[in-house]
């Protein structure tokens, strides 16, 4: 539907205009129509009011030709347009920026656009536009000076600071200003006038437009070419920022979109040009590879900016358009983000910032797996702020949540710990004292700081686990996730080389020991066995190398306590006696009418192993009618019974018994079996 050039008669003009408006708002205008209408509007042929009206329905269907924008900017230079209209035009350019087909002409007139930055009312939008267009060559000293002057006039405006920070990334010596390393508020979103219409048009054209990106190497993260409903969640297509026939380039560059294979990437590693819309990189794994190798700070800055913007828009500022329709898009977007982060094996800083804010307003059920997955990707948080940023909101969510949520949180924290430990085992230097994080996170962390954070995390999970078990009545599923976590924790020294041993708290150990299913008790046995191995080898190493370890006497004491309790409870049938951790008054025990209450948790009478004991009894004395479980204790049976248990698959228990208990196989003697606690 081409729009002919409207003539200047009022009625005909009005009719034509209405027609074009209808097309624009319903289906979007084709590129030629956009250029014609934009030129018509900005030349002010029919006055300012008409210009505003036209700008308001200028919704593109597919792309916006960059010539149209260049022409419009030159009209802007003429200076006859009213300021408010100029603002409207700039907002329009920012809204449709991703749809402009290529940006090299716009970059060529960077200086012209820059000249508008001194105009106060236009300044925020110009800065935003410049942020999107800036490349290394655009940063000139006089521009930096101008921006700094503007800052003294206008104060430390966020848009100026953002543009200056981008300049600083390219030329740190030119911008000597101290800039905050993380800026919370990015540029504001200016597309409110066109948002609804744009989304409607895109919804309509859904499926008709096929974008491209298949730069995968057959890895898991396949790209999906569906366009999003809401503009801010759209992963833009990977478009070249230079046109193929520009001859004035001094260096030969290889546009990223033409990459189709890994060898190609390797050949052209030094001359690849990044696209202007960094968000499009999230779709392709080759592009991510390149990004990772090059470690370009400006690229990460722009990517983080776009990502933070998109996440904030969708989840934190959504005004009510975010109903059920958008949640599948949001799900898809988050899944893509998750797979990107897993591919790169690190989280983005903007995701981290977003998550801290989001946790405070989250209800715990919206997109739970994705949010918890993103949470586990967070890099090591310094222990000074981890409590306030991460633990407080999680605690609040934890206490009032369902069982599955509790299990998911514990699992998420487990994978977070695993990732921290893996990172530590790869990146820590040999001498251990000073480790620095990735180049684009400006923190440095020492080994002791890292260990503090890990300690805080483990303690926090211990507290969560204690309370969780109390709230859920020692549910076995929750217990199994908690024991998963402590399986990771108990091997921190031997598996990951971190000289730290943290025992499970009282509120986790005893419920696990009294669990009613044998799987949990078996796992507890395994965990205790691993703790013993870790502690003994740590002690050996400490004696050999005289290094200062962080394992205190208290840890050894706790371990010995637990070990003694476990052995006397399970093996020596000594439960509820004075002097032990679980001490109950004799009268109370008498009230319970249980004969020999001190045997009630040994290997025969334990709730978890009762079935096995009965089985064993039946096997030993199949003809006996009245079952007396205590007879298992006598003689050879007491030697055979543990073997029987081990043969049922209770490996953890076997390892525990073998490592910690001296079995004197004296026939017919029901003597004391000793246990081997570790010494300090």
């Amino acid at each position: 539907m081409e729009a002919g050039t409207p003539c200047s008669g009022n009625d005909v003009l009005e009719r034509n205009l209405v027609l074009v408006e209808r097309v624009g708002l319903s289906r979007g205008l084709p590129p030629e129509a956009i250029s014609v209408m934009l030129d018509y509007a900005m030349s002010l042929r029919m006055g300012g009011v008409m210009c505003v009206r036209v700008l308001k329905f200028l919704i593109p269907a597919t792309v916006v030709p960059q010539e149209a924008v260049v022409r419009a900017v030159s009209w802007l230079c003429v200076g006859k347009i009213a300021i408010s209209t100029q603002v409207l035009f700039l907002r329009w350019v920012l809204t449709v920026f991703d749809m402009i087909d290529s940006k090299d002409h716009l970059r060529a007139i960077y200086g012209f656009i820059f000249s508008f930055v001194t105009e106060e009312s236009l300044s925020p939008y110009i800065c935003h536009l410049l942020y999107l267009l800036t490349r290394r060559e655009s940063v000139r000293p006089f521009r930096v000076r101008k921006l700094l002057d503007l800052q003294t006039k206008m104060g430390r405006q966020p848009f100026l600071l953002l543009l200056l920070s981008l300049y600083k990334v390219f030329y740190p010596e030119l911008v000597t200003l101290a800039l905050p390393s993380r800026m919370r508020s990015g540029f504001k979103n200016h597309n409110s006038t066109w948002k609804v219409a744009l989304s409607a048009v895109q919804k309509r054209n859904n499926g008709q437009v096929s974008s491209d990106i298949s730069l995968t190497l057959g890895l898991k993260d396949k790209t999906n070419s569906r366009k999003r409903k809401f503009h801010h969640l759209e992963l833009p297509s990977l478009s070249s920022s230079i046109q193929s026939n520009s001859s004035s380039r001094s260096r030969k560059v290889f546009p990223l979109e033409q990459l189709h294979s890994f060898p190609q990437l390797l050949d052209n590693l030094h001359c690849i040009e990044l696209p202007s819309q960094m968000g499009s990189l999230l779709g392709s794994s080759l592009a991510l590879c390149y990004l990772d190798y090059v470690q370009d700070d400006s690229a990460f800055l722009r990517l983080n900016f776009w990502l933070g913007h998109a996440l904030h828009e969708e989840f934190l500022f959504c005004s009510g358009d975010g109903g059920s329709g958008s949640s599948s898009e949001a799900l898809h977007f988050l899944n893509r983000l998750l797979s990107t982060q897993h591919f790169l094996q690190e989280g983005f800083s903007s995701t981290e910032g977003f998550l801290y804010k989001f946790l405070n307003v989250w209800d715990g059920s919206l997109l739970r797996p994705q949010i918890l997955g993103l949470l586990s990707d967070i890099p090591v948080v310094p222990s000074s702020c981890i409590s306030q940023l991460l633990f407080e909101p999680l605690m609040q969510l934890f206490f009032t949540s369902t069982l599955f949520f509790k299990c998911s949180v514990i699992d998420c924290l487990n994978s977070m710990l695993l990732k921290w430990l893996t990172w530590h085992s790869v990146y820590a230097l040999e001498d251990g004292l000073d480790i620095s994080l990735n180049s684009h996170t400006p923190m440095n962390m020492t080994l002791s700081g890292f260990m503090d954070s890990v300690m805080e995390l483990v303690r926090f999970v211990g507290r969560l686990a204690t309370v969780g078990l109390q709230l859920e009545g020692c549910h076995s599923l929750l217990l199994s996730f908690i024991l998963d976590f402590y399986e990771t924790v108990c091997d921190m020294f031997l598996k990951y080389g971190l000289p730290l041993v943290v025992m499970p708290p009282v509120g986790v150990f005893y419920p696990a020991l009294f669990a009613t299913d044998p799987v949990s008790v078996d796992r507890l046995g395994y965990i205790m066995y691993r703790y013993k191995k870790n502690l003994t080898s740590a002690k050996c190493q400490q004696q050999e190398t005289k290094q200062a370890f962080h394992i205190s006497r208290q840890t050894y004491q706790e371990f010995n306590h637990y070990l003694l309790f476990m052995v006397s409870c399970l093996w020596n049938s000594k439960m509820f006696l004075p002097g032990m951790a679980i001490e109950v008054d004799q009268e109370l025990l008498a009230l319970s009418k249980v004969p020999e209450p001190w045997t009630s948790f040994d290997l025969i009478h334990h709730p978890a192993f009762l079935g096995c004991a009965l089985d064993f009894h039946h096997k030993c004395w199949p003809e006996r009618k009245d079952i007396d479980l205590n007879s298992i204790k006598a003689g050879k049976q007491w030697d055979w019974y543990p073997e029987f248990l081990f043969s049922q698959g209770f490996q953890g228990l076997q390892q525990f018994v073998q490592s910690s208990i001296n079995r004197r196989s004296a026939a017919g003697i029901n003597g004391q079996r000793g246990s081997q606690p570790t010494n300090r």
Partner: protein
Amino acid sequence: MEPMDRLENLASSLETVALNGFQGPTVDNGQKDSSTAEILRMKEQMSNQCFEMAVKLQAGKSKRSSCSASDAEKDVLDYANTLEEAKIIHFNKTLALHRMQVWHAISEKLKQSDPEAVAMRGLTSCSLDLCSKIKTLQQESCELQCQITDLQKQRLDLKRLTHEKMKEMDELKRKREHPEAEKYRNVLQKGQSHLEKYQKMATITQNVLRGIIIASKVNWRDDPKLRDIAMTLEDIPISEE
């Protein structure tokens, strides 16, 4: 309370003086005079000290009230911790007792041979089967998790090595010298300084031209020649220094 003792002594000596009718004890005059003067001095001293004590008490009171707030906070935290620990111990004991009783009843039941007991025995064996299945599955998932963690470690290691290699490449690129640089160094430097000079001139000219175009408020897009010029005004790259 040394001044008090002294006061007491003096008071008793004063008493004796009074009782003896103001005839001092067998001391000479000078000492008698000095004792009354001393008493007066003592009185001065006492009043000063009382004043000081009052001031200190006042300060102490306020200090105590201010440090009692932070003390109280610490106490509250301590009490909260003790409370939490007591709760946990209580919970554990209750759990143990409860389990003991219930399972005693269950074991008694299982030893009998009525149909309920048979059903329960069936359930027990069923649950044991399930447990062995769970164990095998857990074993598998544990192994898989180990493999995954190892792979992740390897990938992270590769990533680190890649970054190191890239850094080395950058270093090499920077340091690399053109072969036969010695011969042509002077010429090269001269040529480069010329180039820079002219680049600077061109850049300044470009900026001035751009300023003129902007200030003249002309639509440069319409005129093809002007447009071509305007589009090339960004071209000259900054020198690397």
